Every structure is written in structure tokens, then in C-alpha cells.
């Protein structure tokens, strides 16, 4: 029984058999399950998996209370409309926010690329741009909250119908906004480190005393793209539905 496991560790990794068996042997081989993937990156992926469950639970709970309530659900197209030039334009602010957040994923991806090329100033600037996009997203969200609160929307009720509309709105966008804010703070710290050249000199972290590498830009990026992706689902399920 153990023979196969033993033979899979013979020689180097490239000698493993082809096909599914090779995949299985690769996976179960010694030292690392994911070859060429650092500890930090694996940790971020698993954290994101866990966080996916959190957002899934939030969204499923929102759908459940939307079904359980007997009061009518306010029409998001009307609630989230802005009056521009005398005409209400549905979801215009949300559309702009979505556009900005998705654009920020673009600058983030470029930052990762320039990071691996070790162009530290470009990387830092792109990260700052990403952070600026993120901050403006949060700013617009604050504007949206203010507007709705002004119109009488509260976590415990609103003028148009089901209590759960306000509850779910503030909870889900608030939780997502917190994620974006944490991402912005993290981006600023990392941009500062990139700018200072910490990762060129492998300067040690203040808390962890581990050497820093440009890979942290990519790990930050993973988190950032995840937050973007979550927004797409919130957009689809909360605003469009």
C-alpha cells in the first residue's frame, strides 16, 4: 500500500507519472502540496475561501429574509437613483462605483506586474492609484449612505416597505466597505514599503521579522481582486434584483 507513495518521492518532481496519477502524486508529495507557491500566498487563498463563505452566508441570509418578509421589497432602481438634470437616473452612482472598483483591479494587476519587474516607483504609484480608486469607492458609498439616511432609511425600517431592505443594505455594503477600507490601508502600507525599497533590500518586517519580498504585492492583489469580485455579486444580487 505504501509502495506507491514511496515511489512517488523518488528523484525529483519531474519524474512523476503523467495524467491524474501524476496530479495525485504531485499533490501528496513531500514538503509542499502546491509547488512553487509560497506560504503567504497559500494562506491568503485559504483565507479568501473562508471569507467567501462569510459573504455567501450574508447574501443567502439577505435572500432568505427577502423571502420571509411579507412587506413589499422597495424597488432598488428607484431607491438607488440620482436626480441629474431634473431626471432620475437609476443606479447611476452604483454604476460609477462599480466601474471605479473594477478599474482599480486593472491598476492593481499592473502594480503586480511592475513589482515583479522590480520597478519600485511605478509599482508604488500604481498601488497608490489603486488605493485612491478604493478610497473614492468608499467615499461614494459614504455619500450613498448619507443620501439614504437622509431619505429615512434605517437598519430597522424605511419609508417604502420591508424592514429588511435597510438592514441588509447597511450590513452587506458596510461589511464590503470595511473590506475595501482594510484593503486601502494595506495598499498604502505596502506602497510605502515598496517606495522605500524594503523589498529590494529584503528589509525585515517590524512585527514578524521576516524578510520582505515583492510577492506581497501579488498577495495584496489577490485580496483586492477578491473584494472586487464580491462587489460584482453584491451588485447583481442586491442592486439589480
Amino acid at each position, binding site marked *: 500500500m505504501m509502495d506507491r507513495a514511496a515511489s512517488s518521492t523518488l528523484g525529483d518532481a519531474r519524474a512523476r507519472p503523467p495524467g491524474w496519477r501524476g496530479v495525485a502524486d504531485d499533490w501528496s508529495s*513531500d514538503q509542499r*502540496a502546491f509547488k512553487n507557491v509560497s506560504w503567504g500566498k*497559500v494562506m491568503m487563498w485559504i*483565507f479568501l475561501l473562508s471569507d467567501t463563505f462569510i459573504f455567501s452566508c450574508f447574501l443567502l441570509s439577505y435572500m432568505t429574509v427577502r423571502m420571509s418578509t411579507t412587506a413589499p421589497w422597495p424597488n432598488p432602481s428607484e431607491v438607488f437613483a440620482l436626480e441629474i438634470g431634473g431626471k432620475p437616473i437609476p443606479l447611476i452612482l452604483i454604476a460609477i462605483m462599480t466601474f471605479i472598483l473594477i478599474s482599480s483591479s486593472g491598476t492593481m494587476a499592473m502594480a503586480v506586474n511592475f513589482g515583479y519587474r522590480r520597478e519600485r516607483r511605478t509599482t508604488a504609484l500604481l498601488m497608490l492609484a489603486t488605493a485612491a480608486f478604493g478610497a473614492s469607492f468608499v467615499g461614494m458609498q459614504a455619500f450613498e449612505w448619507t443620501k439614504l439616511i437622509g431619505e429615512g432609511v434605517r*437598519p430597522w425600517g424605511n419609508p417604502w416597505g420591508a424592514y429588511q431592505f435597510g438592514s441588509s443594505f447597511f450590513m452587506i455594503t458596510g461589511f464590503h466597505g470595511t473590506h475595501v477600507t482594510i484593503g486601502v490601508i494595506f495598499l498604502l502600507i505596502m506602497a510605502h514599503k515598496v517606495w522605500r525599497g524594503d523589498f529590494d533590500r529584503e528589509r525585515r518586517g517590524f512585527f514578524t521579522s521576516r524578510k520582505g519580498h515583492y510577492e506581497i504585492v501579488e498577495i495584496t492583489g489577490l485580496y483586492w481582486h477578491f473584494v472586487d469580485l464580491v462587489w460584482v455579486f453584491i451588485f447583481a444580487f442586491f442592486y439589480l434584483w
Partner: protein
Amino acid sequence: MVDVVRGAGGLVPAAEVEDVELYHPKSWLTKYVFCQDAKVIAIQYSLTATAIGLVALVLSWLMRLQLAFPGYFSFIQAENYYQFITMHGMIMVIYLLTALFLGGFGNYLIPLMVGARDMVFPYVNMLSYWIYLLAVLVLVSSFFVPGGPTGAGWTLYPPQAILSGTPGRDWGIIVMLVSLILFIIGFTMGGLNYVVTVLQGRARGMTLMRLPLTVWGIFTATVMALLAFPALFVGAVMMLFDRLLGTSFFMPSLVELGQRSQYGGGSPILWQHLFWFFGHPEVYIVALPAFGIVSDLISTHARKNIFGYRMMVWAIVGIGALSFVVWAHHMYVSGMNPNFGFFFATTTLIIAIPTALKVYNWVLTLWRGDIHLTVPMLFALAFIVTFVNGGLTGLFLGNVVVDVPLSGTMFVVAHFHMVMGVAPILVVFGGIYHWYPKVTGRMLDDTLGRLHFWVTFLGAYAIFFPMHYLGLQGVPRRYYELGQTAFIPPSVATLNVFITVAALIVGAAQMVFLFNLVRSLSHGKEAGGNPWNATTLEWQTPQTPPAHGNWGKELPVVYRWAYDYSVPGADRDFVPQNQPAIVRSA
């Protein structure tokens, strides 16, 4: 396993990962208090969990006293009883068992067993403990807030959890929910570490299929916890909002003390789904580490390789996966579409297959083994028996038609205490008797250990076996006193006294255990590096207790699986995992 010499290349590939540098403590504070060494963190976790566990133990005494002698104790009123029940359940399941198995055993054993110097992110690991401690302190504070801790039952079902009339409605429930949220944040930090260490931090030659089953159990349980705790987290956040902000996630419109409440339109069943989506995997988060540890104890103390290692691994993974699709069997009496009941009953009963497979494999490991009835082995054997007992009543309760009449009775209390209370705790004890020599360098006292074992084992049966009978008699659970009823015979009261006396004795036996832990620290027999002649890596460290960094200058290299006991032709009856193949000239 017979040693087979392979080609000149040897059995172990070249290193893919360079050795890591560790953070070296600079002061007493960073060495013992804010320590980044997983072994110290493990001990911190274990001591904290034990301390809070003792609180829960005392609460169970108080509950038992009330049930046996209703009306005798003026300080146990109905609301106190419900507070005791709630805190006892929550502490035992989450703050004791989860923290002890994953934070305690996981931290200590994972790096040592996989041949790593430490967890992959020691700093985050340290934070994990301090947030856990904060969660525990917040939880304890609920005993001192106005109105006392929440008395909503450990499942915290809304709407009653946040309605006036429930004990601890003002402060207790808030403190409880905040504590749970903190616990989950802290656990996530540790859990990510455990998972990444097992996946990416193993020694050369330590393939996944050479991992000791202890690591497989803790690893799978941690993955499950990382996916199950989010549901509780979300539920706790939403209930906190219901209580503090007046949202109506879980609250339907209802009349509270003659007044129409401010709530309306929420779904109480939603909480049950979120809670049990966490709650059922939680059972296996506690059970899987126990499965793993017990496999290693049995194999070591029966001097025989574990039977069906590969099957055991797949059973652990299979149970872990299945446990995510059975949660609604806790909700049969909540009312559901019969088709869902059918689905969840089926998946629940399917879990019996991998668990039975594990039990057979344990028994077959013992079969014709050289069984040493050491204290850890006694606990391991007791676990198998207890787990089978508790599992069998699980088959009753997994069926909708049998569950519905039994669900509100003591039968359920007996079932889950046997299967996820007594059984895992027996493994905790077995594990402590087994690994204490590695942690401290000294053996625990054998005589006291045997005394502790027999009182605990027989006592647990004296407590929980009669409860099955009480349940079949129709004695309801959750009642703080029975009063006069037509359908409950008076003999039930006598049995309740018997159970309480047994519970007090078993509780007292735990004091013997604690005494043993403390006394053996200085008076125990010197253990040496490998007192049980075990094969796994933690017994092969250069120092005992292992120093910071575990392995001295060079990381171990693994040449074989964890179960080379009584190998024919070998010099000794065990071959450590890091011993190279013996070249024979013949």
C-alpha cells in the same frame, strides 16, 4: 511494512524549500508571554481552555444538583439554571474542546509531527492565542454584567434569545455574541496557520500519505472550521444587529409582554440554518482530531501498524465533507418539507459508513496486537466503546420519525454527551497522558492516572447511560425541575439523584488529574526522549522538551510512514519515521 531498499537515488528527493529563520525571543516577555513558539502557544491555549472548562464543569455540577434536589438550593432559580445550561454548552463545545484540540494539540503536534520548525506564521499564531484569551475573558465577564449571562440555551435560538423574559437579555446575549465573534477571528488566524503548515511546511520525505493520522484529523477539522465558522460569524453579527440596532433578520412580528414588538418579517429558521451549518461540522471539528489521536495511540500502544491507513485518511476526509450536508437533522422538529427531512436523514445515516469503517479499523489494529494497557491506551479503548455507544443512538436520532418524539427528551442529552462530550474528552485525556512526557520531560503518575481513568470512564457511563432511559420515559430536557406529572414515574427522581452523585464523583476525579499534572511536573519519573517507543517525528527531537525550532541544526528527513511497528526483521519493534532504509546484504 517491510524495508525495501530502492535505487541509489534514495527514498527522499532533494530539498525544495530552504530552512526558515525563526524569530528569536529577546526578553522574558517575548519568550514566555508574547511567545511565537507554537509549543508555548499550545500550552497557553491548553491552560486557558482547561481553566474555562473548569468553570463549565462547576456549572454542570450546579445543574445536576438542581435536577436531583429541586428546590433545595435557593441560589439556583429557574433563570440561573438556564444560564448554567447555556454557558456550560457553549464553553464545553467551543471554548474548551475546539480550542484544546486545534489550538492546544494542533499547535503542539502539527509542527513536530510534520517535521517543521514552527508554524508558518508564528506572529499570526501568537495573535490567535491572545484574541482567543480576549474572547474567553469577554465570555467570563458575562457572569458579572447586570442580569448575568444569557440563558437562551447554547443554540441561542431567536426570537427568545433577545426577547425580554429570557435571562441575560440585556447584557448577557450581547457579551456572548461579541465573544463568539472574537473567538472566530482568533481561530481563523490560528487555523490558517495549521492548514498552511500541513500543506506547505512539511519535512523532506513527509508525503501526505506518510502523515500520522493525528495530523490528518486536526488538518481536516481545521479546514472544516474555516468553512463552518463563517456561518456562525454571520449569524452572530446579524443577531447582534437585531439586539442592538433593532433590525429584524431573525425576528418575526410578535407580541412581547402584551405589546406588539418593533420587529417584523424576519426568519427565526434562518438562524437555525446558519447555526447548524456551523453546529454540525463543529461536532466533527471536535471528533476528527479525536479520531486521529486515537488512531496513533492505539497503533503505538498495541505495537502494530494502523489497519487500513489509506482508508482511514479517506474516511476522515469523507466524514469532513459529508458533515456539511447534514445540518438540518438538528431541525426536524422545526418543521420542514418532508423531502428535505428525507434528504438530511439519508446523508446523516451515510456518515455511519466512514465512521463504522474507522471503528472496524481500530478494532482490527488491536487484533492480535501486543497490547500495552497503559493509561493512554485505556483512554483510547474507552473512546472506541463510548463512541460506538454514542454513535448507535445517533442512528436513532438521524431518522425523522424516531427523532420527533425523542428530540425534546433527555435521550438527546445522553446521545450528544456520549458522542461529542465524553468520547472526545477521553481522547483529550489519553492525548495528555501520551504527550505529557514530551511536553515536560516527565511521566504522569501511573497510579493516579489509572484511578482517574476508571472513575472517569465508569462514572461517565453512570451519568449518561441512565439518561437514555430517562429520555425514553419521556423526561424532557431543558426543564429545570419536573414537578408533578402524570406520565413520569416517581422513580425518575431517584435516578436523577444517582446521576448527580455520579457527576459529582466524576468531577472530583478531574481534580485528581489536575493534581497529577502539577505534581508530575517536578516529581514525575524522568521520561527520556521516547518513553513509548513511538515512531512519529515528535519523539525523535534532539531535546526533550523540544527546544525553540524543534530540530536543532538540521531538519529531519522522513523515510517511511508513521506506523512501522513490529516490522519483521527490524532490530526493535518500532522504526522511527526518520530512520533510513536498512541496507541488507543477502
